[in-house]
């Protein structure tokens, strides 16, 4: 998942006794692990939170095409070009079916995309970092898709049916992308020249911390988590997921023969977990607020694609209307 800081609009969790009959029935259904479907009654805040979360996820897929598109024209072999293009196409596909899942909640795709373009809606902070060398195509697959998978696997069991089902398909494809990304790095580290190895390390240095930030703020600074967890649209805390990601990633990093840009990274024998240094939360909040290296560029790219295509969409609508008129 690429959703961070999703606002739930709730200050305090209600107990079952404090709920009216409909809400109580709804919450019991969730507690019993029965999926909520589009036609079921749901609290307004649940609906709005889900729209925010799913749209953020969809926007992330679409904006996430851009940093990869930056290297699609320069992929160094036909095989890598085909792989990267297929990956980007999968992401466009994920965006499409996430928007569809979102529309089952009564939201409108075009309206939500407008919110992205005017800064009201967010997308994952990670896509505001630039892709500066070819190894970034490997690192994004390995670390960024890897972090997304850790987030998304539990979402296959999320309480809202259409979202959970979309996640099952997304997860399969993301796992494939992650292996492919790691393979790009492994090939360069095991068979590449010194220049190629340096590319890989440089790429990891730049994407390491932003990947850890993908899980969102630490638990003590996640005011929306309790409500999201009660609704089971989030199933584990940010810190839990971040730890899970780190524990699976560090051995892979070692296998590559690379290092992390974190002098405090070490394995704790007693806990069986890796410990890591302090995340620069100032940087995270800056990027989320729009002050990352590529924020303006990414939004501008999306906006201009849609604006420049306005005449095309108008033509398609006009032609469809003409045809309908002729058929009548």
């Amino acid at each position, binding site marked *: 998942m690429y959703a961070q800081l999703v606002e739930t609009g709730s200050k305090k969790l209600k107990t079952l006794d404090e709920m009216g009959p409909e809400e109580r029935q709804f919450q019991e259904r969730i507690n019993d692990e029965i999926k909520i479907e589009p036609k079921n009654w749901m609290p307004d805040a649940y609906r709005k939170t889900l729209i925010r979360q799913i749209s953020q996820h969809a926007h992330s897929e*679409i904006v996430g*095409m*851009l940093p*990869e*598109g930056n290297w*699609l*024209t*320069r*992929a*160094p*072999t*036909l*095989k*890598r*070009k*085909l792989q990267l*293009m*297929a990956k*980007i*196409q999968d992401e*466009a*596909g994920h*965006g*499409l079916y996430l*928007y569809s899942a979102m529309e089952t909640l009564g939201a409108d795709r075009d309206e939500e995309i407008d919110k992205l373009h005017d800064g009201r809606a967010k997308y994952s902070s990670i896509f505001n970092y630039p892709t500066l060398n*070819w190894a970034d195509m490997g690192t994004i697959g390995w670390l960024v898709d890897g972090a997304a998978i850790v987030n998304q696997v539990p979402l296959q069991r999320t309480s809202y049916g259409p979202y959970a089902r979309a996640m099952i398909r997304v997860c399969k494809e993301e796992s494939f992308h992650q292996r492919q990304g790691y393979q*790009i790095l492994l*090939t*360069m580290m095991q*068979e*590449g*020249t010194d*220049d*190629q190895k340096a590319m890989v390390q440089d790429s990891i240095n730049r994407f390491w911390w932003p990947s850890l930030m993908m899980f969102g703020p630490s638990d003590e600074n996640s005011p929306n988590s309790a409500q999201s967890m009660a609704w089971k649209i989030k199933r584990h805390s940010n810190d839990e997921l971040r730890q899970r990601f780190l524990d699976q990633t560090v051995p892979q990093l070692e296998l590559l023969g690379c290092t992390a840009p974190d002098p405090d990274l070490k394995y704790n024998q007693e806990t069986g977990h890796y410990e890591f240094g302090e995340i620069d939360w100032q940087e995270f909040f800056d990027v989320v607020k729009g002050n990352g290296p590529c924020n303006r560029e990414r939004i501008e*790219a*999306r906006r201009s*694609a*849609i604006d*420049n*295509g*306005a*005449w*095309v*969409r*108008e*033509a*398609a609508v*006009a*032609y469809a209307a*003409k045809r309908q008129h002729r058929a009548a």
Partner: protein
Amino acid sequence: MQNMALKNTALKNMAQKTQAPLTDYLLRLGDNALVLGQRHAQLCGKAPALEEELALMNVGLDLFGQARNWLGYAAELMVADLVTDNIDADHLAFRRDAQDFRNLLITEQPNGDFADTIGRQFLFDAWHVHLLDGLAGSSDPRIAEVAAKSLKEATYHLRRSSEWVIRLGDGTEESHTRMQRALDNLWQFTGELLQVDEIDQAMIEAGIAPDPETIAARWKATVEEVLEEATLERPSYDAWMYTGGKVGHHTEHLGFLLAEMQYLPRAYPDATVW
């Protein structure tokens, strides 16, 4: 290093046109797909709608796949002919300069606006489908096999590009104007689609390539049918035509396209794997 020298010699020989006509013919097929595929790669994130983003990537993927098949075959023939080793499709794609590319000029034209992109695709598809249909019956079994597979893809490409030409031509006043302008600008590159030179002639005589007159007639029929439905005016078949791609005389656009596409293998010539 010795390997590299051999490869360079092979590529130099190629520039001197020492390769067999079949190799040259395969380069034409492969380079068309590669260069047009690269134009699609440049469109990533720029489509007018999300559904079109998927469609453009789809067409691009098909074209790169076709390029890999044609160039792979060409490379094998070159290895056999020149008694050198290790020239593969990637070498042909990433280590040749513009004058060694054999693609049609229409495939290297810039993306422009969506009407330019669609116009280029349609004029090419309308030819490509009929060519592949003929090649599917080639006397060379490998060509027949690749063509049969590619034909399925190209048939979908033509359906899609025809639909868009019609929508834009018969859509709004603005889309009509843009589509007509794109067509008028691209028309000068269509003469080359139907042109037959010595290489083509050798392929036709060997039963490898199909009869060019049938292809020309079918191309014209497809173009006329779609343009009429699109309420667009077809420029004259007798108009002046810009040709040269098939023998390596390109427009200024190809050099930049290759500079971008070939950047990594050129900047890191010692890297053998990626």
